[in-house]
């Protein structure tokens, strides 16, 4: 059983859909890349480069790849569903590009749904985060009636409502202005530093504004 993830290694990994194609030079595909806990990574690529695929592989949501995915040097191909679910609650936080919010629930209900699984964040802290990102007045609105930018901020707060060793953010601020980007980045960095966790964020042009990052070319 994996208690803590210190490293995530992508060894010779390649999406199967790319197997028959010639792909441009990449730090990730067919390489040997290790993400370390406590460090911040920015994965940049053109659209269609496979950023979301990489996040899905690391999160265990897809397995259509060649090569190996290693947590702490151990191949995770054989992990059972129950083990993955435990890792998702305690070790890896994930904000997918499509956000996966429930449109019929309010912003607060979407956040509480996640927090009820982990019980990791005090309600007052959630209120603070909502205020910091400027959506506290919209917290009781159904998410389906909010703008994409507002939904992204709800998604970021929801992703932070758990303990994690790594947080995966797939284009987390693509619809945010610079000010909201900075606030979101500060919040994510603060929480990652508090937990000693690593950040893996992807971008196609509007990156999360984090300092001391390691840039990775996909």
């Amino acid at each position, binding site marked *: 059983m994996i208690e803590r993830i210190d490293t995530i290694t992508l060894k010779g990994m390649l999406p199967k859909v790319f197997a028959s194609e010639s792909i441009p030079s990449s730090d990730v595909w067919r390489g040997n890349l290790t993400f370390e806990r406590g460090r911040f990574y920015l994965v940049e690529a053109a659209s269609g480069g496979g950023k979301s695929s990489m996040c899905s592989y690391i999160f265990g949501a897809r397995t259509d790849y060649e090569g190996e995915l290693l947590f702490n040097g151990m191949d995770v191909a054989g992990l059972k569903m129950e083990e993955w679910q435990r890792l998702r609650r305690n070790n890896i936080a994930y904000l997918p590009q499509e956000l*996966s919010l429930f449109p*019929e629930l309010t912003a607060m209900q979407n956040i509480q749904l996640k927090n009820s699984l982990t019980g990791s964040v005090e309600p007052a802290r959630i209120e603070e985060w909502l205020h910091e990102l400027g959506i506290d007045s919209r917290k009781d609105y159904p998410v389906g009636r909010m703008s994409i930018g507002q939904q992204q901020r709800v998604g970021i707060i929801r992703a932070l409502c758990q303990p994690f060793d790594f947080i995966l953010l797939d284009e987390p601020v693509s619809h945010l202005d610079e000010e909201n980007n900075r606030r979101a980045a500060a919040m994510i960095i603060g929480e990652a530093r508090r937990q000693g966790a690593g950040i893996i964020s992807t971008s196609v042009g509007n990156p999360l504004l984090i300092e001391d990052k390691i840039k990775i070319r996909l």
Partner: protein
Amino acid sequence: MKLISRLLRKNTSPARIAGFVLSNFIGLAIIAGGVQFYTDARSLWASDDSFINNDFIVVNKQVTSANAWDASESEFKESDIADLRSQPWVKDVGEFTSTDYRVWASVSQGGRGMSTMMFFESVPDQFVDARGDDFTFEPGSDEVPIIISKDYLALYNFGFAGSAGLPQMSESIMSGIPLRLTLTSDDGSRSIEMRGRVSGYSNRLNTILVPESFMQWSNSRLGSGVGEKSPSRLIIAVGSPGDVAIKDYLDSHGLEVAGDKSGSAASFLLNVITGIVLAVGGVITILSFFILLLSMSLLMEKNRDKLHSLLMLGCEARSVSAPYLGIVVWSSVAAFILAGGCVVLLRAYYLDPLQGLGATTGSLLSGLGTAAAITLAVIILNCVAVRKKVIEAWRV
């Protein structure tokens, strides 16, 4: 959990669930009602004796003008018995053993005496389902228990007693009358005096039955010892007395069932009708099972994205299965309760008339137990299907 349930139960169709409950209720009620009625009514045709199991038949060869004077023609040879044993419906075959000596019985009642020559037969102990220890014999004892055919008592009461000016006798009076038995070897050199006691009456055994242990003991004391005779009657343990294969076999081999008062034909009809009713109920239940299965599949397919998103959040498989399992369990239990109530009402309707006909009714558990077992199977199969759907939604 309430939020998860609210999300995953969206798109639930009350009409489809009600359709399942209704059809499952009808199917279960037919099956459980059929099983219950079969259990309750079976005794009417099964000629239930207090001391012999229902699933036995006694057979003998038909006596014709051709074999009337040759007793060996009506005896069962070893090859006949071996052939019988090889039949799929035969569980066990037992031979009737006859006395190898003469029996003289006398009764004296109210100063008037009556005596007659008679005979005894016995069957292996496993075929006699004696309730209590009445029908046993210890070597050295001077009393022997006897089971006689009810027809003998009827013959005496309605044929002989009236014309001879003797009183009629009930079974209990008859059982209380001491019977003096004189057992004499064929050459007249050895003789034993004993007391006989009628311990039971049979509808199906047209004989005078004594315990196997008594037969062995008395034959060894008084028999001529000139080899064993082949049996002329056999007792056969069968799976189901109503099986049509039994009748076919007996007809084709010139055998007849002793004491058969058309019970097997009625039993056969009861089996057929119960079979048809159960088949109809079974088809309806299977269809209702598929209604529920398809309803759950459709519901989970419509909610597949939500299911996937919840699993991406880290929800346990059992948490996201719970709302669907709840629908499966509650709708199945509702159908079971309705069907159970229906069986109880149906039984209340027919129980009195059936008991009036002399049926020894069975337990209500047979109908309800069948419905419960089917309900459990429906729940388990649907739970497996729900679990499979959840795993499908886990990975894209």
